[in-house]
């Protein structure tokens, strides 16, 4: 057998390596397949259990489709082009009241964003690992924030309605509570991520504590604070549209009443107001966010 004395040993080594690779790859693949099968099996089991628990029936769903489409059809009353003005004003017969509720909704979201951000921002300094010196205070601050944001805002609304009666005050307080929990957590993370270098620089050039905070900390955290606050306002407008379901003010109250009384056309009109508002707020907020923060770069 003629072999190339130089290539011979190399080929056999390479063959060995390839064989070893193939073997290990097969083992790896088998392992992965078993894991995936296991996950898949558990997942399928979960889905089946869920289907049984909720008594999910496709039939009820199919049965509901004509009812839902009838619902939808009745939400949009006939609007003819010839008598557009009349038809439209008949549809929006409650416009005055609804727009007043809408204004309340927006103001509720605004006030709750401001109050929640102020309180949450204050707590965030105690909930930031690098700024809190007392572990007990840190722990309490973290738990307070956690409870405030884990209990859903609609539950807070139900509780506040007991004490403050039906109306926007309960709604504002409910959204404020949720906001302070969420903002406190996010702000604490921002506080933990600041770079100490600018502070060192300011101290080295003779700045005092106030200078450190004003020129070292604030420029680092403010863009993120502002960005989170605008974003939170968007979310709070959504919340403010639903706290009215339990009597905590805003346009949700009108929507809830209309659904309960089966005033379909009103439901359609109010939903249209809500969706237009939310889309407008999202766009506006994005614009403001970009113009307010575009100049300062994000710190992380």
């Amino acid at each position: 057998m003629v072999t190339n004395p130089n290539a011979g040993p190399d080929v056999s080594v390479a063959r060995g390596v390839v064989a070893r690779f193939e073997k290990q790859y097969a083992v790896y693949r088998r392992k992965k397949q078993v894991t995936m099968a296991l996950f898949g099996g558990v997942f399928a089991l979960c889905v089946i259990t869920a289907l049984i628990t909720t008594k999910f029936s496709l039939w009820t769903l199919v049965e509901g489709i004509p009812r839902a489409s009838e619902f939808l059809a009745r939400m949009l009353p006939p609007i003819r082009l010839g008598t557009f003005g009349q038809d439209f004003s008949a549809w929006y017969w409650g416009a005055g009241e609804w727009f007043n509720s809408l204004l309340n909704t927006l103001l509720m979201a605004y006030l709750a964003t401001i109050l929640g951000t102020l309180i949450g921002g204050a707590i965030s300094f105690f909930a930031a690992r690098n700024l809190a010196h007392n572990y007990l205070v840190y722990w309490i601050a973290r738990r307070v924030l956690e409870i405030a944001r884990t209990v859903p805002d609609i539950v807070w609304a139900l509780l506040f309605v007991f004490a403050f009666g039906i109306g926007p005050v309960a709604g504002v307080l409910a959204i404020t509570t949720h906001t302070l929990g969420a903002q406190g957590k996010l702000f604490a993370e921002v506080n933990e991520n600041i770079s100490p270098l600018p502070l060192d620089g300011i101290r080295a050039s003779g700045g005092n504590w106030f200078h450190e905070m004003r020129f070292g900390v604030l420029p680092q955290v403010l863009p993120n604070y502002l960005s989170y606050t605008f974003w939170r306002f968007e979310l709070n407008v959504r919340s403010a549209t639903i706290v009215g379901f339990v009597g905590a003010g805003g346009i949700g109250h009108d929507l809830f009443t209309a659904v309960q009384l089966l005033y379909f056309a009103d439901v359609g009109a109010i939903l249209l107001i809500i969706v237009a508002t939310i889309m407008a707020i999202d766009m506006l907020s994005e614009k403001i966010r970009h113009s307010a923060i575009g100049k300062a770069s994000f710190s992380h």
Partner: protein
Amino acid sequence: MTSQLIEITEADIAEERARNPGAFAAPLRERMKAWMAWVAATALTLFCLHRFGFLSGDFLHGVAKFGDTVISQMFPPTGYESLGMFLKAIGETVAMALLGTLLGAVVALPLSFLAAKNMTRSRPIQFGTRRGADLLRSFDYLIWALIFVRAVGLGPLAGIMAIAIVEIGTFIKLYSEAIENLDRKQIDGVTSLGGNGMHRIWFGVLPQVLPMMLSNTLYMFEHNVRSASILGIVGAGGIGFLLGDRLRAYELREACLIIILVVLTVYAIDYLSKFLREQLIGDHKRREPIDDAVQV
């Protein structure tokens, strides 16, 4: 080599200030603008406080009542004899979240390809799908639940549908963004080997986006357990139904127990979901866009 600190005098500073005023302070107009924004925000806040009656005696009365009656009547929580019923309702809540999220993901997956700029050539279709998704997302779960309770009746089905509808919107957005960010080269590779459209998606697109999609879907499931826990307040099944019932009947101690159970469940699901994400995808850190898309 020795270095020497240069003595800076007030005159030097003044000279530098004259040469480069922007380095010392923002222009007056900019500062005025910032001040105006702060003043306007404060004025609007005060107006809101006044409008909603925060500045009246009624508010202080409410605060006292909240402390005296509401908080003191919540503790200690009771109702342990109905624990079995509560746990069953919590199981129903988690099941609603699971099915709603799954249904939303299954419907959204094909639609997200339509909504991705790099997959759909027709701008109107791509743009329309995106806006449709925005429309579905812009109503809160509770609004959809309220409507579906009317359409399919009281019970978990209405809750599942409410979650599924919102999730179709969210997943179309998240999935299509993931698809838009993928690496074109792998798809070109499949094309150059003669693969058709199905092959391109199966071998070129899905391996790249699937980990991200799975992670997002798990995260939304986690989020939806929270949402599902309140849908019952408008009659859409789950633990929220019992919670709303107890709160409206002023059974605050039992309501407190339910709230504690819900919070514990949410924590448990959070940990499970985090564990699964790490196991399945090695996703140690939560990805940024998802946190922007949903409420914390």
